[in-house]
């Protein structure tokens, strides 16, 4: 285990540690799924028939899979109790005003494709609503066998965003996918779905954005297939309302010589779980999996990543940074698997957390399972606070305390922000922090 700098309420649990965190719901073993299953019938009356069989299979899996509890290792610090206690409704079709698009975008409001708010896609790209496009890859990338939430998402599969970039097509302009939730009085649940397929030597940049008001549950699944020699730059901006629940599984499969970059920016939500799973399915591919999470108040943000080095000669770089204020709770669990044949793997993982208050908590755990013998794997976790010497230095130059704190927070997050290639998103993050 490399650097683990513990301060504040930081906890760095070694693998296999049996310490039990206090204050977490732990008696959810027999949780009730009817909160979701009783919506099936009403959903089917309106849903497209294209995915009828797929929904049925998924519902069977959802019924068979136990819901995660804090007794299991993968959900140890995140209780889903609020999701089962809140009575969610299917969302109504609503129309919302939205500023005109500056680039190509697909908009979904309350789970439905909003054609009027969307804008034309770049030339050569097949994109639109999943309800209108035959995409054989759907449900082929995201694993439903071990994730009840993914199975639940597929149980409601009808609409969603589909972007297919054919072989050799290079798309310069970022394509934005916007999911908005607008409950009308009662809490609602949506199951956003994204399928992004980049063909051989194709290139594309996709922004996935989540917004909303009030109390709702977003259970998102994103499937990304990066073809041989393809380059995909993916940015997820999670700006849900501060009373929203957001559970997302982003799953990526990479062909030989593929290059994938993801920035997972988690800004909103009351209870957030981001899962990112990358699987190397060909040699000489490279994945950059970065994340930035900002949480305050009583927000709970759990980042769970899995990098599966299933093939030799691939590289993965992972940096997650978190800024936790007030009573916020952050969780980072970074798994890296290096399979037996995956020689010459180069995997690097870093998790850094800035605690802005004595009451904020982080649980961070790197988890490396290496079965090959000729690999380079490093990981490190640090937990720190704003340095008093830096604060005083800024204040001695006239910068007020609160501004100095924000400036240093931005400095902490800056190396993630700077790696995002889309300028407007960098500006948005700077605005948000400073």
């Amino acid at each position, binding site marked *: 285990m490399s650097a683990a700098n513990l301060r504040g309420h930081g906890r760095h649990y070694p693998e296999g540690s049996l310490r039990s965190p206090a204050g977490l719901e732990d008696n959810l073993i027999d949780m009730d799924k009817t909160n979701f299953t009783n919506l099936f019938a009403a959903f089917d009356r309106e849903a497209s028939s294209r995915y009828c069989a797929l929904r049925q299979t998924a519902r069977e899996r959802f019924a068979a899979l136990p819901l995660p509890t804090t007794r299991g290792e993968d959900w140890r610090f995140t209780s889903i109790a609020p999701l089962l206690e809140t009575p969610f409704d299917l969302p109504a079709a609503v129309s919302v005003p939205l500023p005109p698009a500056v680039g190509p975008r697909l908009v979904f409001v309350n789970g439905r494709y909003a054609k009027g708010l969307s804008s034309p896609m770049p030339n050569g790209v097949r994109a639109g609503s999943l309800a209108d496009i035959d995409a054989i890859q759907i449900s082929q990338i995201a694993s439903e066998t071990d994730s009840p939430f993914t199975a639940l998402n597929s149980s409601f599969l009808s609409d969603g965003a589909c972007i297919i970039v054919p072989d050799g097509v290079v798309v310069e302009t970022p394509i934005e996918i916007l999911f908005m939730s607008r409950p009308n009085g009662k809490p609602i649940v949506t199951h956003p779905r994204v399928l992004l397929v980049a063909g051989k030597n194709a290139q594309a940049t996709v922004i996935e954005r989540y917004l909303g008001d009030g109390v709702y549950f977003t259970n998102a699944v994103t499937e990304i297939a990066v073809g041989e020699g393809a380059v995909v730059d993916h940015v997820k901006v999670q700006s849900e309302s501060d009373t929203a629940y957001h559970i997302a599984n982003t799953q990526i499969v990479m062909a030989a010589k593929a290059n994938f970059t993801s920035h997972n920016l988690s800004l909103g939500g009351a209870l957030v779980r981001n899962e990112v799973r990358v699987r190397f399915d060909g040699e000489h591919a490279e994945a950059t999996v970065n994340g930035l999470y900002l949480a305050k108040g009583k927000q709970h943000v759990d980042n769970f990543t899995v990098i599966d080095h299933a093939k030799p000669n691939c590289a993965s770089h992972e940096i997650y940074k978190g800024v936790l204020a007030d009573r916020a709770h952050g969780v980072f669990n970074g798994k890296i698997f290096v399979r037996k044949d995956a020689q010459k793997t180069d995997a690097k993982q870093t998790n850094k957390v800035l605690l802005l208050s004595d009451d904020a908590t982080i649980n961070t755990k790197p988890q490396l399972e290496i079965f090959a013998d000729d690999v380079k794997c490093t990981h490190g976790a640090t937990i720190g606070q704003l*340095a*008093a*010497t*830096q604060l*005083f*230095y*800024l*204040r*001695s*130059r*006239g*910068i*007020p*305390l609160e*501004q*100095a704190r924000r*400036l*240093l927070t*931005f*400095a*902490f*997050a*800056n*190396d993630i922000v700077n790696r995002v290639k889309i300028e407007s998103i960098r500006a948005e993050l700077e605005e948000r922090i400073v």
Partner: protein
Amino acid sequence: MLTIHNLHAKVADKDILRGINLTVNPGEVHAIMGPNGSGKSTLAGVLTGRDAYSVTDGEVLFEGKNLLDMAPEERAGEGVFLAFQYPVEIPGVSNSYFLRASVNAVRKHRGEPELDAASFLKVVKQKMKVLHMPEDLLKRPVNEGFSGGEKKRNEIFQMAVLEPKLCILDETDSGLDIDAMKAVADGVNALRSKDRAMIVITHYQRLLDHIVPDFVHVLSQGRIVKTGGKGLALELEAHGYSGN
């Protein structure tokens, strides 16, 4: 400009300053010398509001206002500047971002309008020229990867940009070779004016060959035990602090 009266301060439970009295008028340069542990840096810290120190007695008036009641940023706004003995590195924040935030915070305190990016750059570029600062300075993170000499010059550069009324230089010569020290001293001398006062804290006389003071004070065990003209520094150099 600055009146220190019977100032007592401690760090943790240790008394460091035990009754400092000092008056500094506009245009004057005061050197404060003394052996290690005599309280030189504590005095600088107390004047600028470092929270490691607690003042137990006495008062400090800056232009008639109670300096000790002010937050560090207010003191900077009023025109007090400390050139740090150990300038702090701030990775992730560029010098230009930092300096602009600083200049505008100070301007705001003084009730002046904030500078936009263009006018800020104009002011800064001109000062960089005077102090021979490297071109890429503005883009680089604050003090990160700077040599000792560069860090100290960056302090003087910030001082030039902020145009304070009272400059406190805390061991600005420490760790510098003779060329770097001359460069820093030239920068300081360029900022001397009839409206600006300076307190130069140093362990060695050599800096005072380049920044010639009007007064030299010897600090020992938290008190000023001797005051004289610039000749006093030479005496100390010849006979040491224990020669007093």
